């Protein structure tokens, strides 16, 4: 009976510790970087979190210009300039969605299977005028 109690206690302890570890891992960013952009002043931070096996991009302290048809994209490059045109160039990109707002904290799902070792830059991109409002090279956290 005593042995059974010890076993149950150990199992409970192991479960709770692993649950705590899982939470801790979720909220630790895996990548982060700061946005730069001159033509349309863009500032703030981008961070990527692994939440329940899915990658989520979060913008914080974020500010850019408002504009038509602005999107958040990941590009397979080390950085991006204001005048880069990603619709015509053959730089691979992944669409994360239309920009939800030009100010404030916001989250975007990164499609499953996205290779973050290849897509190293987040860009705030105006598709109508092919203008990069801002770009943030990612660095491992």
């Amino acid at each position: 009976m005593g042995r059974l109690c010890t076993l149950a206690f150990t199992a409970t302890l192991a479960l709770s510790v692993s649950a705590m570890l899982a939470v801790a891992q979720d909220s630790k960013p895996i990548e982060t970087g700061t946005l730069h952009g001159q033509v349309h002043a863009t500032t703030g931070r981008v961070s990527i979190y692994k939440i329940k096996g899915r990658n989520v991009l979060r913008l914080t302290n974020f500010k850019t210009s408002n504009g038509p048809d602005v999107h958040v994209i990941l590009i397979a490059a080390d950085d991006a300039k204001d005048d880069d045109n990603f619709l015509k160039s053959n730089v691979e990109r992944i669409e994360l969605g239309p920009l939800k707002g030009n100010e404030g904290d916001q989250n975007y799902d990164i499609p499953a299977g996205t290779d973050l070792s290849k897509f190293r830059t987040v860009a705030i991109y105006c598709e109508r005028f092919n203008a990069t409002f801002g770009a943030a090279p990612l660095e491992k956290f």
Partner: protein
Amino acid sequence: MRAFLRGHKIGTAVVSFVLVVALWYLFRPEKLFINKQVNEAAPFAQNDPDQPTYTGTFKAAIHETSGRASVYRNSNGSLSLKLTNFHTSNGPDVHVVLAKSSDPALAKRSPGAALDSLEVAPLRGNEGDQEYTLPSNVDLAQYNTVTIYCERFHAVFGSAMIQPF
């Protein structure tokens, strides 16, 4: 031309109206003045101890220095500085100090750099993760650059400007 316009008043009005609407739709000039604010919650519990308040990566000055410096606010209000993936050169009397990013001494690639700095602690190791306690009244908006500084030769090994997370 003027006669044509006078003769086709309604047509001209319609064409100009369509043109104005098309240009407005294309450029959306009102967005220059109207902001769209969003405020989505973090995808995890708020005020999580795993969330840094500042972070930045090291850049080399005199010696190859790399890794990340992050500042965390503990539940008792104290500030911790963590160095991760850290690597610098070993040396005599090397300290972790806080400096101002605008200080020209930070970029100096020779000894004898007169750095305006606040002491954190002697560097414990030139490689590996390590944690230091920051003075609780430190102004990180001003002293915003974690610097690896050799006191003996007044040499900046490398520094990391930290920015709000």
